[in-house]
């Protein structure tokens, strides 16, 4: 064994770094050296503990003592008291905010419970290419129980009672959807898994399929039993080759074990699954378009009703569910509807997986109980904003969602609260923006996506979104007038009201929510022709401060369009009509004489 009998783990996450964790490390080492303990106790830095609010963190191993709010000045006490005398430094111990009790052992602290993995429970735990590891985690046990002991009606009721709602966007009751599909009489029915995952920035469905494919297969079989289908289809985008490979392996293994195919586990129930590949169009994630695409038709949506539960794939009743929705199903059968409905908020049960991206420190995939606040997600689990900048907004729900602001940070996240706040859950993409992001440009970015992805079948979406994009482009380039803001809103509302499918019905949301929450920023673009965040190139000017310019000519020499003139050793000038705002001059200037206005 090593000579070290103790380890001091100092959080090196960005949040703790900003509050001097490096200095703490240094001081701890110093104190150890003073006592000749450097070969017995090792100090090392770790990644983020996800407890940034109470940082900096020092954890002592092997006894698991967790010190919070440590300052460099505390290093001496930690070494002298804890390491040498074996006494915990009680003033640094975490105090449970509700019980006011000191909790020294990190295992007994509540904070790691901020994240609860249900849908992702096997991801990163089992080998996804080994069915036995899944079975060792009670895999296929729910299916076995259901087909041997429970009637389809009772099983469906259990899903309904659990309160599970669709994770694909709309949040429709999963049990109710199964009930509706079950109630439509037909000789043939289908279970479809929607693995199109078109929201840019979301990748939870991919991660589930890559990390725990059997979970989804099992859920589809259970659904098949409940609604009376013997065939399942997974619609997956061809851009997910690894997920496809793992699914193929999983299907093969399940067939070999007889967990898919005829007379599963000796019962009368038969069920098999086939993969269908999509070409990665956003609109093909919409269930009717998805079904048409699987039928070999153009990936265009059609009017609902009839809903797929009545008339879906090949005109037969079809139950479409999202990957993450399905990933919750087997465990609900193993642990019960009451267990599931005990997690979350009144109307949104269970957990939700979010893909954290943008200006956030801990970019990653997280799963939290419904009702967790945006603040907890962004500042505790996500480790806060990059480079110590100020939080400005968070976009949830992708191109169909909206931007939420500081005022919403303490809103508990669930389906209904997000809609009320002017956004939506969507598939769970969460893009964090800081003070440098221009909200008009953000809206424009999403509209650009929508215009690209609109299938063109209905006019409001095809033409309206394009016009909306043009208006935003005008505003960003300083050509918009104040009246344009009213047009923007009016047009957004018309598109929402008159589009054929969910794509057009939600695509103006990024515009509306930024108009609501950042009206001043829009106003600055149109009335003052200024972009407060300094992002819109057309609205800024590079400018030489006369007093600072020594006339070294460095800027003039790098200007690619010869917009800078002036005599040697005399202040230079930028011709705004020629300047293309590339910024090369500012980078070159050694005298801080060039600024953006």
């Amino acid at each position: 064994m090593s000579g070290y009998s103790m380890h001091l783990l100092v959080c090196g996450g960005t949040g703790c770094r900003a509050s001097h964790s490096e200095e703490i490390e240094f001081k701890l080492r110093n104190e150890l050296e003073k006592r000749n303990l450097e070969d017995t106790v090792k100090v090392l830095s770790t990644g983020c503990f996800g407890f940034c609010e109470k940082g900096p963190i020092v954890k002592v191993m092997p006894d698991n003592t967790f010190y919070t709010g440590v300052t460099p000045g505390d290093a001496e006490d930690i070494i002298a008291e804890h390491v040498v005398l074996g006494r915990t430094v009680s003033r640094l111990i975490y105090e449970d905010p509700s019980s006011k009790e000191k909790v020294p052992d990190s295992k007994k602290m509540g904070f790691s419970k901020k994240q609860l993995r249900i849908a992702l429970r096997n991801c990163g735990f089992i080998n996804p290419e080994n069915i036995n590891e899944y079975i060792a985690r009670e895999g296929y046990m729910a299916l076995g129980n259901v087909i041997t002991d429970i009637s389809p009606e009772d099983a469906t009721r259990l899903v309904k009672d659990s309160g599970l709602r669709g994770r694909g966007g709309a949040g429709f009751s999963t049990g109710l959807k199964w009930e509706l599909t079950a109630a439509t009489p037909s000789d043939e029915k289908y279970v479809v898994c929607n693995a199109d995952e078109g929201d840019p920035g979301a990748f939870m469905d991919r991660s589930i399929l890559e990390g725990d494919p059997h979970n989804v297969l099992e859920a589809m079989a259970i659904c098949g039993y409940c609604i009376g289908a013997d065939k399942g289809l997974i619609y997956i985008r061809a851009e997910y080759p690894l997920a496809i490979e793992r699914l193929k392996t999983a299907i093969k293994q399940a067939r070999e074990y007889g967990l898919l195919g005829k007379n599963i586990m000796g019962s009368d129930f038969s069920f098999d699954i086939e993969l269908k590949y999509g070409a990665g169009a956003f609109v093909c994630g919409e269930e009717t378009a998805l079904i048409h695409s699987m039928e070999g038709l153009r990936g265009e949506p059609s009017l609902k009703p009839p809903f797929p539960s009545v008339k879906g794939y090949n005109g037969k009743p079809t139950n479409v569910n999202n990957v993450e929705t399905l990933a919750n199903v087997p465990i609900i059968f193993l642990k019960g509807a009451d267990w599931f409905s005990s997690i979350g908020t009144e109307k949104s049960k269970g957990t939700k997986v979010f893909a954290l991206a943008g200006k956030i420190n801990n970019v990653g995939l997280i799963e939290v109980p419904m009702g967790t606040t945006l603040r907890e997600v962004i500042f505790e689990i996500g480790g806060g904003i990059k480079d110590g900048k100020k939080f400005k907004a968070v976009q949830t729900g992708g191109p169909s969602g909206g931007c939420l602001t500081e005022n919403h940070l303490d809103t508990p996240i669930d389906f209904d609260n997000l809609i009320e706040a002017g956004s939506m859950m969507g598939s769970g993409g969460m893009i964090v923006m800081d003070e440098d992001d221009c909200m008009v440009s953000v809206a424009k970015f999403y509209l650009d996506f929508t215009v690209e992805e609109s299938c063109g079948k209905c006019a409001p979406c095809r033409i309206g979104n394009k016009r909306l994009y043009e208006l935003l482009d005008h505003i960003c380039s300083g050509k918009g007038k104040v009246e344009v803001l009213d047009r923007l809103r009016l047009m957004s509302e018309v598109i929402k009201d008159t589009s054929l499918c969910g794509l057009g019905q939600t695509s103006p949301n990024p515009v509306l929510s930024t108009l609501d929450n950042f009206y001043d920023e829009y106003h600055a673009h149109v009335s003052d022709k200024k972009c407060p965040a300094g992002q819109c190139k057309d609205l800024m000017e590079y400018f030489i401060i006369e007093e600072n310019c020594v006339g070294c000519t460095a800027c003039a020499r790098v200007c690619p369009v010869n917009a800078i003139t002036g005599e040697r050793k005399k202040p230079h000038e930028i011709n705004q009509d020629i300047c293309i705002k590339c910024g090369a001059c500012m980078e070159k200037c050694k005298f801080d004489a060039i600024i953006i206005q």
Partner: protein
Amino acid sequence: MGKIKSLDDLKKISKDYKKGLDLREKSSHPEELVQVKVAMATCGIASGAKEIMEYLDSELEKRAIDAVVTQTGCMGYCYAEPTIEVTLPGQEAVVYGNVTTEKADEIIEKYIKTGEFVDGIIPRNYETI
């Protein structure tokens, strides 16, 4: 493998594998076995997880350490890929992030051989049911 013909068959497999049948097959001293899991989702692989897995696999064998290296899915720490989870016998699993081949070498030499932690630990920040 044979077909599972009843719920009882399934339960038997579950029980066998829960006891670590797989691990026992791979080692004569399962209680001394080191387990290494490499997060191999698309993001991990894109950051070099495959290379790390191959490296660990061959180096552990070369250095005669009784270990089993397997792949797993995404642990969620995208900002620190590639990530690996190391479980020493009788101890709690430890996750290391931003693993390069040099880091992997250090993990083998220090953490796996002597139990000494090295820089780069990613504290686990979730509960799993």
